[in-house]
């Protein structure tokens, strides 16, 4: 663990017990966040990004449950298990109680910005009322001092005439302005870490640009760390320091943003990058990833990406890839979970037919009996 690490997630598993089966939304992921950096979590819808971040705040609701792993924030244990002699896991004694989570962590240490600014503010209370409540809860300010702080933060995130807007209702704000309000809420609580769960996805591109600039400026000013969840590689390039690429509940590649973009290792990351236009590359046609993500109830054996991977070989169906360090220099910490980079017989193996060329044959592949359970259902409940 790096000295500046403020949050460390180790082997986290969050499962949902649905009637259709156990959804392994987050299945053994590890990453950390250091002081003052922006860490990206990227992946398609249903990869488990949001579940991973909600797990950090322990806001997973029935039928979901954190079943294994450790989440450490500075010196406190947010999630931790001890293994008993019979092999069952029990929560550690030093794990924070729900009350401690509420009073010591949520808001004042780790704040969150949700995806949809239209739904994240309570329509029947004024923006100021909600902002002031969160400030009073998470900082030693009350009444008029909290209100003054609220107005100051609104001004800082670029809301014109904050004194007047403080008493307005959410429906009187535009989408971009509401997202600014939500950022103001997060900043006003002076947290150490802000989790931004696709905060610009619901906004149009010009507003998205403004918000990203705003966050960059504020991040420099306050030195707050961010976990930035997104499916947009362009956003990652713009603001992230380090990136975790998630696929079907697992992290497949992690490393500094430049390494991920210019020394891409995992085929999934490559595919993600090829599916978006890039200013530094000229292509005739974008190359989207074929198929959809399989269900997290019954993920493919071996490498979870092998059903859609252009580089897949027979070995990928059998071997569960482990994280391999692929760093060029010792301190880059670039890792990937692909057996191409591990000595487990990838190169001796026969390429899987469906993926060797990107044509329609993958459809037939999906219909083969052994793959029929990979029905195209939503991975996340």
């Amino acid at each position, binding site marked *: 663990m790096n000295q500046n690490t403020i949050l460390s997630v180790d082997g986290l598993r969050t499962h949902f017990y649905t009637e259709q089966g156990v959804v392994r939304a987050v299945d053994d992921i590890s990453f950390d966040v250091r002081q003052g950096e922006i860490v990206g979590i990227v992946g398609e819808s249903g990869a488990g990004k949001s579940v991973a971040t909600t797990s950090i705040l322990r806001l997973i609701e029935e039928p979901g449950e954190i079943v294994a792993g450790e989440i450490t924030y500075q010196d406190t244990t947010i999630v931790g298990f001890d293994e008993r002699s019979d092999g069952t896991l029990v929560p550690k004694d030093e794990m924070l109680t729900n009350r401690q989570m*509420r009073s010591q962590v949520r808001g004042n240490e780790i704040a969150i910005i949700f995806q949809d600014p239209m739904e994240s503010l*309570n*329509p029947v209370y004024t923006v100021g009322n909600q902002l002031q409540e969160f400030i009073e809860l998470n900082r030693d300010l009350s009444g008029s001092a909290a209100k003054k702080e609220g107005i100051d933060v609104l001004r800082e995130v670029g809301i014109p005439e904050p004194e007047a807007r403080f008493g307005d209702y959410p429906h009187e704000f535009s989408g971009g302005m509401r997202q600014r309000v939500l950022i103001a809420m997060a900043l006003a609580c002076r947290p150490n870490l802000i989790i931004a769960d696709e905060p610009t996805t619901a906004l149009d591109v010009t507003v998205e640009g403004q918000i990203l600039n705003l966050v960059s400026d504020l991040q420099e000013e306050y030195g707050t760390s961010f976990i930035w969840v997104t499916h947009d590689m362009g956003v990652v390039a713009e603001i992230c320091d380090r990136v975790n690429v998630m696929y079907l509940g697992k992290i497949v590649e992690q490393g500094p943003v430049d390494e991920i973009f210019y020394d891409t290792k995992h085929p999934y990351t490559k595919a993600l990058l090829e599916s978006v236009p890039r200013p530094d590359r000229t292509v005739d046609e974008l190359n989207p990833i074929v198929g959809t993500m399989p269900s997290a109830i019954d993920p493919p054996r071996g490498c979870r990406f092998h059903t859609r991977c252009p580089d897949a070989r027979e070995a990928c169906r059998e071997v569960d890839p482990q994280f391999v360090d692929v760093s060029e220099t010792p301190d880059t910490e670039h890792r990937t979970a692909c057996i191409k980079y591990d000595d487990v017989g990838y190169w001796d193996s026969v390429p899987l037919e469906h993926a060797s060329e990107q044509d329609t044959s993958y459809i037939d592949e999906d219909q083969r009996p052994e793959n029929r359970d990979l029905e195209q259902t939503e991975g996340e409940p």
Partner: protein
Amino acid sequence: MTLLRYTISRFVQAIPVLIGISFITFVMVNALPGDPVAIMLEGQEVDRETIEAVERRYGLDRPFHERFVTYMLGLVQGDLGYSFHRDMPVSQLMWIRLGPTLMLVFSAFVFALVTAVPLGVLAAKRRNEPTDHVSRLVALVGVSTPSFWIGIMLILIFAVWLGWLPSGRLVYPWRDPAHYGFDGRLELYYQTIRHLLLPMVALGTLQMATIMRIERSSMVESLQEDYVQLARAYGVPERTILRKHAFRAAQLPIITIVGLNLSTALGGAVLIETVFEINGMGRLLIQSIQQLDYQVVMGVTIVLATIFVIGVIITDISYAYVDPRVSYGDRE
């Protein structure tokens, strides 16, 4: 536009509605079989001329539209006609009978809201736990049991078998205690409550069950909203989330349902007043229909319709008060 101007404009908009209601009622009463003059002169030996004289005197010989205009002119001056049966002006009769009905309906809604809202919130909070299942079962029974049957059962149990409560009639708090032979105001109020309890529960059960079901589903939905999740993520205690963040927005459907259910409650009051021998509008309506007392039937219908329209307006206003997104009809 301010809330006051909104209120005034809603009342102005109600005027055409009330004229329409009066017209329909007038047409329907005119279409009823039976001759009011014959009923008036029942049991007397009369000749053709006397009948015609009576018809002329009350304007019954004039065409339909003239009679309607005359009736409406009287209506806006507060004149609802005359009850030959009871030998008093209908408007005066209304004043006497309105109080008991309003008291009954109002108390039934108070009972329903006071019980249903906390139960609904509790059921939503403990969703799919035993508390929730029990309350949903109770609500289902409440919705599907007729109120008059509940009334009869309540009388049987609490008045006849246990003898705890009176079986009928109301005591009116606005009357002089001496009228009932009570010692003072305090005993008057005590007796008012004792007498009101059974009819209130009988009439309010349906409302309670309906409101509880809506409250539960509305709170369940509200508790899953992003803004409730956000409040949790900022460390707001669960108690405050229930009371503040989830509760207020969840009450909007309740307001709508209370306004609309005013009609079922007024209809229910007709039965409950009959079961409990309460001399309110409902019982008056039943008796007047049986006695073919047309003027009274019309008067009761119009007054009940007016109460319903006013109730809906109050609903709209409280909706605008609770939900800031409701515009007051500004055209920008």
